[in-house]
């Protein structure tokens, strides 16, 4: 699945590079960092049960290649979301890293972007060492608004990461969803 998604993203990226937008545009690389707060939801397949819990404020790191014209932009990005923890006592840390394509519109210094891609899942240690459990990533999507002031970028992001936890013993797949609001700041090179 992840290999398939990577190929799709490379294909999208190549398409973008030769698109009319990119021909008339300039490109930049932006590095951003910020904080987000969100919630984690687990849907158990067999039990038809759902659990939800707040995830405390956590660090986000983002890197994006963006081709932009005066009023449009496209690009590719990557995001690293380490060490998330729900507020439950003794909760274990988990995380994600994502690769995605983005497209957006610009108005003066302001922008509105949509992002879609694939995220890999970093499971908690107890699930890493559990021979009966396997995990995979899932679809990542999000949207953001922000502005560029000189070479600096400020962004408010809503993103959703997905993962699948498979209980091999019972052949059950359970869905994990992490949705969050983030505030990121960065520098454009």
């Amino acid at each position, binding site marked *: 699945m992840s290999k398939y998604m990577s190929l799709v993203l490379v294909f999208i990226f190549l398409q973008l590079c030769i698109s009319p937008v990119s021909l008339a545009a300039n490109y930049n690389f932006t590095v951003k960092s910020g904080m987000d707060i969100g919630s984690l939801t687990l849907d158990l397949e067999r039990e038809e049960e759902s*659990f*939800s819990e707040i995830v405390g404020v956590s660090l986000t790191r983002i890197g994006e290649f963006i081709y932009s014209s005066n009023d449009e932009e496209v690009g590719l990005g990557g995001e690293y979301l380490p060490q998330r923890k729900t507020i439950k006592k003794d909760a274990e840390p988990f995380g994600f890293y994502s690769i995605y394509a983005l497209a957006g519109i610009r108005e003066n210094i302001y922008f509105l972007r949509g992002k879609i891609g694939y995220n890999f899942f970093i499971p908690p240690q*107890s*699930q890493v060492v559990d*021979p*009966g*459990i396997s995990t995979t990533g899932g679809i990542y999507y999000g949207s953001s608004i922000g502005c560029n002031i000189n070479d600096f970028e400020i962004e408010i992001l809503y993103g959703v990461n997905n993962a699948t*936890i498979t*209980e091999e013993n019972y052949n059950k797949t359970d869905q*994990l969803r992490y949705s969050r609001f983030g505030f990121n700041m960065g520098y454009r090179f």
Partner: protein
Amino acid sequence: MKRFLIIILIIITAGLIMSGCSPEFFGALPGNNESYSSSSDINYSEGEMIVVLENNQPMQEISVDKKKEVMNEELSTQRQYLKSHGFKIDNILSNSQSIESKVELSTKIKEKILEDIGYINLVDYTDKDYKNFNEAKNEVKSLLENKGYKVKYIIRNYKIKKVDSTYSGVSKQDNLKKMHSDQEWNYEMIRAPEAWEGVRGNEDVKIAIVDTGIDVDHPYLENFVDVDSGVNILALRDVEDQDREKLDDNNVDDKDGHGTHVAGTISSYDKVSGIMKEASLIPIKVFPDPGQENVEGDFYDLLNAVIYATETGVDVINMSVGGELPKNNLEVDKFIADFDANLNIAREEGVIIITAAGNNGESIEGSDYIFYPASSPYTIAVGAVEENKQKADFSNDGVGLDVMAPGVEILSTAPIDLDHTNYEDLRHPEDEYLMYMSGTSMAAPHVAGVAGLMRSANPNMTVEDIEYMLKDAAKDMGNEEEYGEGIVDAYKSIRNRVKTPYF
């Protein structure tokens, strides 16, 4: 002024009298520590005392290769010293003790016991002519202190008992009806059949059954019993005890029936099933066979059993045994703290310890307590429920109760060669290899089986994880002091591996 002084004197006198009457006051007095027992039913081994000495030599200061030598030398010195004064002595860590013939106690475990507890000795003074326990205790204490030892405490060697019930509320005819559904009601209550869809246990999961032994030739058990790893703890004591010397430390066969019944609930096959479809059952015998009344299991044996099981590398210990210890007694409290430390050493080695809460629920009205070691924070204490999910009348409740499991008229394995006449009436009328028993002793192995299933699903699960998941998955039954976290749920406990890292 004079009247004022008289009033003050009266108040002070009254205060002194009142404080003098409190058990704590007596408990703090040296030599009087055995005066206060909460129950006259608390039994102890005559002529025996547990003497715990502080370890004065920090083990980290000794090089690794010298540690064992230093420890053994010290143990030998203590032994020779008390022997020279006419006492018989046994030390759990002693090299000469025959526990070493079964399993070499590692320096690591010895070191932990020495650091967390100290030198645990059993002193037998039956050959000495003392008027009472206190006289013997004071003599031993002064002898040791004169030699420079720091005595932590000295207590009587209290006895333990099987936690089976005398409950007899059903006839064989009623039991026949149960036969038609076999063990369905109790296993379905804890959702074992659903758990088996994915996890059935395996032979790598070792379950120690600290009990009366196991019928090693039982047709529904024999393939699961690891006789070589089993031990008769009663035979290990290195004192010149004629009754114990007759025992064979390799003989773990069960003539009583209690341990075999417990074993069958954890794992059995053919006409019955355990909670685990496969496991390695290690019998650790702490009770004698019927007819050996001169030998009885006690807390020293139980301490030894936990150390042995830990060293054997078991995953789970089922202790459907326990007992009452005197309350408001400083020295007994110190012993409990040391026993807890021993249980914690086992826990740190990855051993899950399941205990029966006790069957005095009916007899001690209004007195909420559970047996020791069930009341220890390092064990999972199990109470019993009936088929209607109500707490069994006999099941002890109180602070420290963790979970509930079926414990009334439980069908499980019975030794064919049963010497215990009290149990004969409990046999299944159509299958002499089976019998029905009731008690928290029967509830505990349900939970031990679930813990074993969890370990087989993921051998890397920590004790804390298993304990948390078991309790989290339990079906809430309301009153926590009566039901703990509720009735254990095998399927949900295993599935909790998906949920609990996050929620």
